[in-house]
């Protein structure tokens, strides 16, 4: 079972966290602090697994972001490594469709921050991918469809919040 998911920037800033076991606030900060110390200092061309305090952590770097997942001792490391990649591909597809001009990882670093709604999409995608620390869906297409549905729900609500005429214009577009 995956215990937690962390996205950490190269500078050690946390971009996303998700905990599937009950960690207290204090433990969470400790995991983040110590683990980023361990992972960010690892050189390239090493394996994607680190052992840390009885945890096994699978991580992979994409551009300036590190994706880390803490797993149990007996879990299959490669499987989790590919879950990470799967997640990245889903984000890629989503953000790619949002802004075609920039590669998605730039989107991650900037848009995730500037555009909180997009940021939320990263969470949403994760929830569609994993529940209870286990893989829920292995089809990218399905996940993408669900995020899109979610998006339209949010958009519709936002538009409604700004003005009614906006909705109408949106609908007739």
């Amino acid at each position: 079972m995956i215990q937690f998911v962390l996205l950490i920037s190269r500078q050690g800033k946390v971009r996303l966290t998700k905990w599937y076991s009950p960690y207290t606030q204090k433990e969470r900060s400790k995991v983040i602090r110590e683990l980023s110390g361990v992972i960010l200092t690892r050189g390239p061309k090493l394996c994607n697994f680190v052992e840390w305090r009885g945890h096994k952590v699978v991580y992979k770097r994409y551009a300036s972001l590190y994706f880390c997942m803490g797993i149990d001792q007996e879990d299959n490391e490669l499987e989790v490594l590919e879950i990470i990649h799967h997640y990245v591909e889903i984000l890629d597809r989503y953000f790619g469709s949002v802004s075609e001009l920039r590669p998605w990882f730039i989107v991650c670093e900037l848009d995730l921050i500037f555009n909180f709604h997009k940021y939320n999409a990263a969470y949403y995608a994760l929830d569609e991918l994993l529940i209870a620390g286990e893989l829920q869906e292995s089809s990218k297409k399905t996940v993408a469809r669900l995020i899109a549905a979610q998006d339209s729900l949010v958009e519709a609500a936002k538009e409604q919040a700004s003005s009614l005429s906006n909705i109408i214009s949106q609908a007739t577009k």
Partner: protein
Amino acid sequence: MALSGMRGLSVFISDIRNCQNKEQERLRVDKELGNVRTRFKNEKGLTPYEKKKYVWKMLYIYMLGYDVDFGHMEAVSLISAPKYPEKQVALQSIGTTNMVGYIVTSSLLNENHDFLRLAINTVRNDIIGRNETFQCLALTMVGNIGGREFAESLAPDVQKLLISSSCRPLVRKKAALCLLRLFRKNPDVVNVDGWSDRMAQLLDERDLGVLTSSMSLLVALVSNNHEAYWSCLPKCVKTLERLARNQDIPQEYTYYGIPSPWLQVSVCVCVCNFLLSVISHTFRKRKNEILREVKTMRALQYFPTVEDPNTRRSLFEVLQRILMGTDVVKNVNKNNASHAVLFEALALVMHLDAENEMMSQCVALLGKFIAVREPNIRYLGLENMTRMLMVTDVHDIIKRHQAQIITSLKDPDISIRRRALDLLYGMCDVSNAKDIVEELLQYLSTADFAMREELSLKAAILAEKFAPDLSWYVDVILQLIDKAGDFVSDDIWFRVVQFVTNNEDLQPYAAAKAREYLDKPAIHETMVKVSAYLLGEYSHLLARRPGCSPKEIFSAIHEKLPTVSTTTIPILLSTYAKILMHTQPPDPELQKHVWAIFSKYESCIDVEIQQRAIEYFALSSKGAALMDILAEMPKFPERQSALIKKAEVAEVDTAEQSAIKLRAQQHMTNALVVTDQHSSNGTPQSVGQLSLVKIPSISGDVGSSCQEHTSADQELSQANGTLATVDPQPPSADLLGDLLGPLAIEGLPGAAVLSEPNAVSGLEGVPIPADDAAAIVPVEKDTNSVQPIGNINERFYALCLKDSGVLYEDPNIQIGIKAEWRAQHGRLVLFLGNKNTFPLLSVQALILPPVHLKIELSLVPETIPPRAQVQCPLEVMNLHPSRDVAVLDFSYKCGTSMANVKLRLPAVLNKFLQPITVSAEEFFPQWRSLSGPPLKLQEVVRGVRPLSLIDMANIFTSFQLTVCQGLDPNPNNLIASTTFYSETIRPMLCLIRIETDPTDRTQLRITVASGDPTLTFELMEFIKEQLAGIPTAPRPPAPPAAPGAQPTNPAAPVAQPTNPAALTDPGDLLAGLL
């Protein structure tokens, strides 16, 4: 565009982005948190929209890594924001509000937050409601942070969703994983009956998303109860087959051309769980224990197998296909995915009773993997090889890869180095121990600091387990200390001292080695300790060698003194004293020098050093007497290595298994593996029992094993200290005459401590003949031929009230006790008197202390000379309130018979009480302030022995409770006070009130109050025992043996106040009392 409505949020986020440094960011965040906090405070004015906005901000701040410790309630409350199903648009708007609630709640909170419970009902309504969006949100949140309460109230609804035919896969896959979470929180929520059929149906599911989730659920269910789900096994195999052959798998579920690798992995895990849980149920072991012991079970010819031949065949075929059909390809992701499946298949083969051919294929594959360039595969190759070692007998094949594995120990990647170290540790046996340990030692000097401790521990253990000869072992450990002193725990050097002490052949060698290391310019402090110790004990064996005269050795050691810390100095002082003692004829110059050092430290601020300096100085001026006192340390009792124990606790220990095998194969004469051999000064059995008590390695050697010292030097001092205390009281002849009678003991000063003879006679015991047998617990029936004189229980109760008297007597020995109590400390002296004209041999006294007492028994001599008495002081410290009693396990040999008794020591609760008088002004406020349980307890007790108030007051006085006259207006009530002393809580005032009913004296109401709940409870029980334990009817002359009279917890059945006058009929006695 997107968050146009939330300008405040956008502004805040760009503010944060524009912060130049962490400090600015922090200020901005604090300001925002303050703002949000104030807004939440006057919540009434908040619209749902505003609430949502602030909760978003909180999430954002939390994401930046700041603690957000408020506003959780608001987040949870968003979940239950009102819904208006009649308005579609509004619904969507509200929907997002709920969504914010769900997302923020599951990010910020964990299952232990109380107010999550508040949301259970809303969440349930969302789950059983018809709106798919809300269902999904609720299932996701519960699946991610649901706790026990959620499990209890939601499981049936979630189960329904999972098997509902009207739900879309989208909901059902979430339900499957949500149920998995709830099942993990409380396995009882899934009712096995009927559910197993449902699970089997679920495996026919067409939607691979639902199938993936359901398979994860099945993995967990199977490891809990495999039998119920056995019918799922063929379907699992079929699924695996379908995936491996890529039959009928939708395109979107293939990942880089591989049909859902995750599902394949999870099916393999599931089948493996079936096999393992069969063993774990048969052997009643947990899964991780099983993993360690699979090999043993295989040896027992017990291995579960898939019985259905068709399923079995297809499983083998599909595994074969995976093992053989996985090639290394260029694409990293494809490679990873296929290898993920391969490694899982490999694990399954290991646990499956597969043909040997398949197993050797696996080993061959692993051998290939550990040499590839791809680091992930190398890592996993090493990891799985270690696993394989545990499971099957592949030592010999794996040994072929030893060179490659040693290369991996130098890999640039620490993760891989760790795996290599583990594997080397696991594969080590007698044949390759020398190579491997030397490799580890060599690696030690270059290893990262993160690994050194583990490395040195492992090297030490392997050296101990597989040493071809002992001198090699000593070499290894000394090298270890030399190279990585900081990482060598005390256990390691204690262990080497134990071995050297117990093996005479080794002593000169070890001393010579230690001498060599002392010549090095800079050595680690641990090395100073171990060399000083060894040279102190054995340097005289080297006397003829060059550079090894006492003087030279002394100056070599003394050179190091300025560099060491205060914990080492006492060891050095002992060494000096020993060197001095061994120098025959005495060397006046050396003596002068050493004495000068002793006198220099006589005023040392460190008590330990000071005491040793003074003692050694005094002793060494005694000349010949020094010889006895500083004689060579006796051999240590054989015991399991603390290191090995540590390693066993720490992890799966494969080397241990090979060590067991090894022991069976060959009896190595000087094997370092722990043997059952009896040591010279210990009865092996009792030593074995003792090792249950946490003992540091050295302290046990003098029999005073019950202390819990932590540092070696304290232990060493203990050894020396006790030797010194025996000295002033040798069993001398002139004492013999009056030693033996009970009077000699009872007449000791302090016997008349009790000022109120009334109390004594009022309380002391009714003899309880039936308990006699129970009080002495024979180790074995035939060993206990000696019958006690007098009643042991009666003696014990008498001693609970007095401070001196006889604890035990039989035809051979009399054990007397004299005690002094001051606050939480007690000092007892045991007087062991031999009544015979021949010596008592193999005398052993062990204290089995309850957890609340810290007891240190000094050295008990092995032999008690004829008609002599020895004294053994015993220090007691009370840590916290408890009624448990310490037990003295005493045994001796008289002629051919062995006697063993277990005696309760009168270190009971009331010994730590001191009477105190309180006035009405002090009493009442205190009494009122301690209101209600657990600090104040009240109980009505019926059926007690009727006592007059005066008698009761006397009983209390004898237990150190002050009876306060006139405080209670009701003359039928009684108030008492006392102070309780213990190490952990400050002196605690205890107040007691007894209300009696003049018309029915068998009924009492007792109220006890103190500032500590445990104390209140224990005191209440104690008083009840004293007052209520006796039934009103006279006891029958020979009541059936009280079942609870075990020596360790004598509380309940033995609480009857008894009379020491040894009246035989309890009826008479009661009459006398009344």
